[in-house]
């Protein structure tokens, strides 16, 4: 049985349009024109227990809206949602006790109080027994190395320390389903990696089902077997990362370093030149033609070094979004 089941989910917002300027403001005072924004438009997918799924898409694609619907914050315009057998919108306490939503840009910690106060409050709200609370807390504090900051006012913590504490607050009740909305936003590279490792281990240790959204491809490519891509409210891909590469990357990249100056125009007969800065060049060729092109290059040019590479996952996805035919 799947843990998360989404069928034809739609969420439309009404926003009012306003013409720019003072006159526009006055007009909108008397007559407001509303416009439907289709934040999520007919999205379906299902997720099994223990899966770690990456949710990607450009800004405003509908990722966060979907997560908010799944955690019961938003009332879907239409469609069927089921998480752990519950309808999220009912916000049954038994349901809420098994999930957690972490939003990188919003905090649940009390800004003016030490993180520990929030933890204790959550313990009472989620009715976590003292023993279990101590055990889980110690565990998390060790893993994330935040022992020293628990009793410092949250407003005085660094972003990284705060995010770690946010995560602890969200995990104290050992949720079975975890929605992480940009958990690594604003963190430095080292911290991002730590966060990633932690998420991975939590997923494996507790068999937790996790949906994660992120702008950083590294998060997704290192954590998630499966990715769901949405754009403008529509689901445009659901499958493994490898499949994306196979499906959308119809080309490969050849990096060459020349040993002598060459006539760049000649290069174009063999492959599409993306960059040429003597002595190096970056070329793209059709996937199936890559070997032939490489051989041609070696034959016709003075070459010091040559590499055939898969395109970066970021670039593939950027191409997916910028209107290549993806149906």
């Amino acid at each position: 049985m799947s843990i998360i089941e989404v069928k034809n989910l739609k969420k439309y917002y009404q926003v009012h349009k306003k013409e720019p300027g003072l006159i526009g403001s006055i007009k909108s005072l008397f007559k407001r024109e509303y416009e439907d924004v289709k934040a999520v438009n007919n999205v379906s997918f299902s997720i099994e227990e223990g899966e770690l799924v990456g949710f990607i898409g450009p800004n405003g694609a509908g990722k966060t809206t979907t997560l908010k619907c799944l955690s019961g914050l938003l009332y879907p315009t239409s469609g069927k949602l089921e998480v752990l057998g519950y309808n999220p919108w009912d916000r049954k306490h038994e349901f809420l006790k098994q999930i957690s939503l972490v939003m990188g840009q919003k905090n649940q910690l009390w800004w003016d109080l030490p993180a520990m106060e929030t933890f204790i409050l959550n313990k009472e709200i989620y009715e976590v027994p003292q023993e279990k609370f101590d055990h889980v807390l110690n565990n998390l504090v060790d893993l994330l190395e935040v022992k020293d900051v628990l009793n410092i006012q949250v407003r005085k913590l660094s972003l990284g320390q705060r995010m770690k504490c946010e995560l602890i607050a969200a995990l104290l009740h050992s949720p079975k389903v975890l929605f992480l909305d940009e958990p690594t936003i604003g963190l430095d590279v080292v911290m991002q990696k730590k966060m990633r490792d932690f998420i991975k281990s939590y997923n494996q240790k507790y068999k937790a089902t996790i949906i994660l959204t992120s702008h950083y491809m590294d998060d997704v490519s290192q954590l998630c077997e499966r990715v769901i891509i949405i754009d403008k409210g529509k689901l445009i891909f659901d499958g493994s990362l490898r499949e994306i590469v196979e499906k959308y990357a119809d080309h490969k990249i050849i990096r060459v370093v020349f040993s002598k100056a060459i006539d760049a125009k000649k290069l174009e007969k063999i492959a599409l030149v993306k960059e040429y800065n003597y002595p190096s060049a970056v070329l793209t060729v059709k996937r199936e033609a890559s070997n032939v092109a490489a051989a041609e290059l070696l034959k016709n040019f003075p070459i010091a070094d040559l590499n055939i590479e898969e395109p970066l996952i970021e670039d593939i996805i950027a191409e997916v979004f910028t209107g290549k035919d993806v149906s």
Partner: protein
Amino acid sequence: MKTLSLKSLPAKMLAKKYLQIVKISWTNTLVYRLSFILWRLESIILFLGTYLFWLAVYHNSAQISSYNKTTMLTYIIGILILRNLVFSSRINQAAEDIASGGLNKYLVKPMEYFHWLIGIDLGDKIAQLFFLFFELIAIFLIFKPPFFIQTNIAYLIYFLISSSFSILIYFYLSLIISLTTFWYPEHNGWPQRFLFDTMIIFLSGGWFPLDILPLPIYRFLSLLPSTYLRFFPLKIYLGQLELKEIIKGLILMFLWIIILRRLTNFIWQKGLKTFTAVGI
């Protein structure tokens, strides 16, 4: 659907939850010292304004409507006490939570948001009354006001019952104002709050006892819930109402509580459906 039912939890768990919320409320009060001090200051200034005004008025006349100097000044001090007991600044928080999307963090927790507000409000009331106690001592030492002490136990009991009803009525009224932020989020719902705060001072008898107004106006005001927030309990305390009037008032208060509670839940459910949880 969600209502304000407290039945679902064992009492002990509930008590622990509330205790923790009350604690958070206090710690927050101490952190936001300035707004706490300003709220106290506002309370004192409003009191001094009305007190000194009525003191001056009674300089020339011994009796106005059914009030002599003692009962009037007792009334004004009573207004101060009930302001701290009945009114609350913490329910404004709901408007801010809704407008800023901070409501999210409560909604994803296995807890009713209204219970949270009650807990926060409770903590706040205890803190306000604690400080009021010292302020009252100062007021009595400085102004030595004549004070009417009600000795009839029955009146005192009715006073306490009506005051507890007042707390509920104010809670729902104020919450409804906060909930309008779902539809009018401008400035975190401050405009409607400002109008409410201003009107409620007058309509609850904060400037003067409502029965010194012309009878038709007073009769009309008697139907509104605001009249029962402070004026009505104080009238009982002063022993100026007959039993029949007291019972009639208490029944009306009870009806208002039921109506306002239903209305609050209705608006809450409607509001949540339009809630966009801020940001796509």
